[in-house]
């Protein structure tokens, strides 16, 4: 469900996300948000719901960056939230973020490990998209 001008890039990004989901079965949904706040890959089809999810995720990234600045730490690299009914995990990329949701009983450490390992591939695809 990636949406990007380069068709190859969109397919590549979907492929990387599909691989991550296959590797980490605890992941319920997964998305890639660009540095500009555009949702590049999501389980939602293009439309209102997808735009809404992109806006909410961008707000979360802004909040994290603000907290990092206020703490004098520069930037955040990883975010983990236990929201009661599940977990939201965010890993920062060069030029965006990789986010995932899991159930409450998920092995969160393992999911974050898989997300960090996938980061390089996602960044590579994003860089290829910028070159096109």
């Amino acid at each position: 469900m990636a949406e990007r001008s380069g068709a190859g890039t969109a397919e590549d990004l979907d492929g990387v996300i599909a691989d991550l989901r296959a590797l980490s079965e605890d992941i319920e949904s997964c998305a890639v948000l660009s540095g500009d706040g555009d949702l590049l890959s999501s389980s939602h089809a293009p439309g209102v719901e997808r735009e809404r999810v992109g806006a909410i995720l961008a707000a979360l990234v802004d909040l994290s960056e603000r907290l990092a600045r206020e703490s004098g730490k520069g930037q955040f690299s990883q975010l983990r939230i236990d929201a009661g009914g599940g977990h939201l995990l965010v890993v920062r990329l060069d030029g965006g973020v990789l986010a995932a949701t899991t159930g409450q009983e998920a092995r969160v450490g393992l999911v974050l490990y898989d997300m960090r390992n996938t980061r390089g591939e996602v960044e590579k695809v994003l860089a290829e998209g910028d070159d096109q």
Partner: protein
Amino acid sequence: MKKLLRRLFVLGALAGAGYAAWSYLQGQSPGKENVQIVFDDGSVRALASNTTEGQEFTDIARKLIETGL
């Protein structure tokens, strides 16, 4: 009879003081730290659910978990 009433009064006062102390501690106790943010330098900050910042993160996360990404 008078002695019994005095004992009951003392017991009631003790129970009331105990309940007041318990209620106070409940209000003051730190909430569960349910937000963990890792910074570029490797340092970690945890936010509790009963803080304004922690609540902001949790509310946004809950919406995204409900709708899916």
